[in-house]
């Protein structure tokens, strides 16, 4: 009698001689991944539908008459799968040979070289020599508009880009035009990808060098780039990204998978917004003295003198933070203010866009209105928003304050040279100098997020860490170190040696962060809600 009872939620099968148990409905490709075998694939992408058209992920399933596409064949109980049997290998070699019939092998001038799946697979399993004698087709390149260039000769017709635009961006601008060996990816004639806000992702998902970024074109080789996990600072979504750096310069930003924040994607606005991290003309040494008396000093002198001045301060403190600053920097800024006296203003300013820009096929990902990474963190740490939606104004009281003024990370771009003129003590901590910092008694160079460790809280209330990918210029130091040292001296504690120590202090002092540790946040972040139930 057939068993019509509820089926088990998991299936157990054998892949390459090893038993694997996976949830029902898992594809063979995924099941193989769980035991460490990557089956080659082009058309399959975890964030897209699987058309099973590239024919390179075929594996041998015992009992099946033909090789099966592992991306769409679901794991079944008792299946015996061979991903590396002679039949599977022979098939892959054959498929790869067909891919190379028209592929130009221009790896030396191709941006994808080093991260190209065709290069990898052919190197692993392809024939030593091609047998093709016919000339290869030549298409040249096509400018898709935006940041995207298309080299038709290199294309393997996996249609990932077409499906990304259809299913994720929901803006079906790409299609396969013509057929057979004449097939290319194109838009509707000259309409291009201009104005599509997430089109840059098609470059990331292209398994070969067919779609490349104009911005990154011939800029760096993949194997020269260092990858640092980080968080995008262009809006309060906080997409998980990687900084790809070379020669101490950020060369490009790439999304880093996080299914709870950005999936595999990021927006073009965030992707393009990195040149400022490489901008020269940074503050490189601490400086003391107002206006014309300003002179560079070493950190020891600057901090010792500042410590003395703070101790004898007037007691009424106004602090200006920034939604670009880390939780650690903002917390330490607060501690210094509170150690000196009464904090009568604790504000930050941050620009807001007119509207949000969601990614229709991945609704979690939205380019938020707040165009800074840590608006929510600043709020949780007691900073109030000031100013308007352009990130200007709102500092009238601070500009004319006669007590102590502490500014961290706000470039004061809209303020004039009288800012802080009447302050008893004006300390400016920033990465770039500002005309409005002219009256600062101390100008202290701090690092950008790309040069320091720290954490942000995104719009979902998710604490996410970032890591230093660049060496800071001159003697710029992380804000949490400078302010943490001052706070420790004023309060009689220990100077923090790491961002984790500052975070531990923050966790103890701020209820919103209670119960969190740096280790627990890890690379994928933690929602504050999840910590507090």
């Amino acid at each position, binding site marked *: 009698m057939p068993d019509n009872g509820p089926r088990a939620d998991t299936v157990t099968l054998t892949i390459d001689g090893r038993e694997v148990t996976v949830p029902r409905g898992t594809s063979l490709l995924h099941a193989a991944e769980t035991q460490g075998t990557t089956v080659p694939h082009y058309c399959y992408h975890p964030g897209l539908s699987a058309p099973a058209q590239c024919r390179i992920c075929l594996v041998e399933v015992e009992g099946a008459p033909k090789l099966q596409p592992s991306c769409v064949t679901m794991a079944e109980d008792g299946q015996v799968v061979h991903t590396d049997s002679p039949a599977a290998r022979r098939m892959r070699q054959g498929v790869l040979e067909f891919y190379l019939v028209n592929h130009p092998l221009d790896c030396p001038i191709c941006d994808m070289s080093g991260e190209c799946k065709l290069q990898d697979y052919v190197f692993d399993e392809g024939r030593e020599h091609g047998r093709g004698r016919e000339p290869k087709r030549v298409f040249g390149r096509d400018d898709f508009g935006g940041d995207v260039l298309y080299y038709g000769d290199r294309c393997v017709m996996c249609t990932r880009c077409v499906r990304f635009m259809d299913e994720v961006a929901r*803006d*079906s*601008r*790409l*299609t*396969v*035009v*013509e*057929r057979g060996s004449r097939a290319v990816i*194109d*838009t*509707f*004639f000259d*309409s291009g990808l201009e104005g599509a806000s997430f089109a840059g992702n098609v470059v990331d998902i292209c398994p070969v060098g067919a779609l490349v970024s104009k911005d990154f074109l011939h800029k760096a080789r993949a194997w020269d780039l260092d990858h640092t996990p980080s968080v995008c600072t262009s809006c309060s979504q906080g997409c998980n990204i990687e900084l790809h750096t070379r020669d101490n310069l950020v060369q490009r930003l790439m999304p880093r998978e996080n299914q709870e924040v950005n999936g595999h994607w990021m927006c073009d606005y965030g992707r393009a917004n990195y040149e400022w991290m490489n901008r020269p003309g940074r503050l490189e040494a601490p400086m003391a003295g107002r206006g014309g008396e300003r002179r560079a000093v070493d950190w020891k002198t600057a901090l010792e003198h500042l410590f003395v001045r703070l101790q004898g301060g007037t007691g009424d403190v106004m602090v200006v933070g920034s939604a670009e600053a880390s939780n650690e920097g903002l917390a330490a800024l607060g501690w210094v203010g509170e150690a000196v006296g009464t904090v009568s203003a604790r504000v930050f300013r941050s620009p807001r866009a007119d509207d949000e820009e969601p990614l229709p096929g991945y609704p979690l990902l939205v380019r938020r209105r707040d165009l800074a990474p840590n608006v929510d963190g600043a709020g949780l740490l007691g900073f109030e928003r000031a100013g308007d939606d352009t990130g200007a104004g709102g500092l009238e009281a601070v500009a004319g304050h006669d007590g102590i003024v502490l500014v961290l990370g706000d470039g004061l771009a809209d303020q004039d040279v009288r800012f802080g003129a009447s302050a008893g003590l004006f300390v400016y901590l920033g990465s770039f100098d500002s005309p409005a910092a002219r009256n600062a008694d101390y100008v202290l160079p701090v690092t950008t997020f790309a040069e320091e460790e720290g954490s942000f809280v995104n719009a979902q209330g998710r604490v996410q860490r970032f890591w230093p990918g660049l060496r800071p210029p001159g003697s710029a130091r992380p804000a949490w170190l400078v302010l943490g040292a001052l706070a420790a001296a004023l309060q009689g504690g220990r100077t923090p040696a790491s961002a984790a120590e500052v975070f531990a202090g923050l966790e103890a002092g701020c209820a919103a962060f209670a119960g969190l540790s740096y280790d627990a946040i890890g690379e994928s972040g933690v929602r504050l809600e999840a910590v507090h139930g």
Partner: protein
Amino acid sequence: MSEIQFRNPGWAGNTGEFDLTEADVRGTDYVGETQLDGGHPSVSASLPYMLVEKNPEAPLFEGPYQERFEKIRSRYPTARAALLPALNLAQELRGHISPATMDEVAELLGLSNAYVRGVATFYTMYNKRPVGRFLIQVCTNISCNICGADEVLAAFLEHTGTEPGETSSDGNFTVVEAECLAACGFPTCVQINSRYFEDVSAADVPAVLERLKSES
């Protein structure tokens, strides 16, 4: 003239064999090349020369053409499925599928214009450029090739004075090479508009062209 016993054998033009007018043969319920009511769209390809006036500027779709378009739309569960016959109808009306036509059809069916371009360029039976009154497709696939298709193609090009894909100066003829027309038993096969000419040899070509000219 006796009463016509059969329905819709198609209008082959006046071949001289029968004393019939187009209206006699096709009836009056035709619009363009396809029966307005009840006919299956696949029938259109079995009909003879497409001799209705093509107007590249004709609106999509008006009057009886709109009726046919709506019929097409109602026969298919999705807009994507209705795309091929919709493009057929547009080509019947305009003679070829221009970028503007693709855009309009996309708009009518609620598809992206890029997708329509992809479909239109995939199928060779959609003319992406204007063609002459008679589109002459010479099969050069295996059977025909063995039996002299290359000479037939050369003869058509010579007698029309064109290059492959080019339209003759009088606007009558466009000669193209075609893949197998599935008439391998009677090579060389030449498809002229919707009609097959079989057993064509290079020597037959001037006579065929003369006959076509008499139609136009």
